């Protein structure tokens, strides 16, 4: 059975599914056959990978301030305080058998 070779225009629409390994075997084969012969599409895939890797660098943006951490911690202590007040000290863990509280 002759299969239609994939075009560049088709490839750019399928590239995400390909990188996710979500294409079926015949389509994957057609795509890879095209990539083997098409320099331009290889460039496109490289650009796509570089775009993704650049996005990953954004993880280093927007670090939370010390003030934010303090705020979260303060909120935790209030919650814990309420906890202790409600239970007169330590509280039983529903997962552990009853025993002396820590």
């Amino acid at each position, binding site marked *: 059975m002759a299969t239609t070779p994939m075009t560049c*225009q088709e490839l750019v629409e399928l590239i995400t599914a390909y990188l996710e390994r*979500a294409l079926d075997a015949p389509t994957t084969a057609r795509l890879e056959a095209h990539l083997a012969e*098409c320099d*331009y599409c290889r*460039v496109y895939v490289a650009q796509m990978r570089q775009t993704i890797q*650049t996005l990953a660098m954004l*993880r280093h943006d927007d670090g939370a301030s010390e003030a934010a951490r303090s705020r979260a911690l303060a909120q935790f202590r209030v919650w814990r305080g309420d906890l202790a007040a409600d239970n007169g000290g330590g509280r039983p863990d529903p997962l552990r058998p009853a025993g002396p509280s820590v």
Partner: protein
Amino acid sequence: MQWQPTADAAAADAPRNPRGGPPGSGLGRVPAGTEGGATGAPSPPNRSEAGEELALVAALRQGDEASFVALLDRYHDALLRLARVWIRDAAGAEDVVQETWLAVLQGIDRFEGRSSLKTWLFGILANQAKRRARREGRSVPFATLGTANGGDDGPAVDPDRFFPADHPWAGHWSRPPVGWGGAPEAQLLAGEVGEALRRALAELPSRYRAVIVLRDVEGRTSVETCNILGISATNQRVLLHRARSRMRQALEPYLDAEGTAPGGHHANDLPGAR
């Protein structure tokens, strides 16, 4: 009540489209355990991580501060970045993260471990952020109508870049992409390129941005992303595809080494003619 390790949780929270795409779409069934990031590395269930989470949750229930600090250190920054998907201003996003921590503490008894702690945490954040954005009318504005792709659902690449249907080389690049060279990504982020990237990200519709931030910035898996956002695997893939295509397009003018190749090819130059 028995804890379920994360491995079982992953199966229980499997993508909602196990049969793959419609016939002829080329979309096959996604085998379990092979979903990975763009680098193709699979994400096997991490038993030590599951055990760690278990211990953390148990300690939190006891009011253990060190455990809470560990959670803060691990996730606060990422939660803030995710909140910015829906909340424009830093202060509002910060508020949402603080509300999320409170919700986590108040809900820690009810957490059953069917999903990972991470997924649960980010899911709460996503819901809080979306709710707040709707309530305050500060939702991200719709993508500007003047974009090259004419809005949300445009093709991955401008059709002008390919030969038209009646051309002998229909569907092949007429104005192909140019190599970007090997500049390290960290350097790219400084200056013009970084600004362009951040701007393009901010201009994405929030449903695209949510997926690309979770997948490509935060490195969450496809399954985690679907669970956090409450969307199907297929939907997630489509959103990711559109988001990535737009981001690549945004970077292109800045990274093309020599500018895009001149339009018009001689038949001899075309890639198929080798």
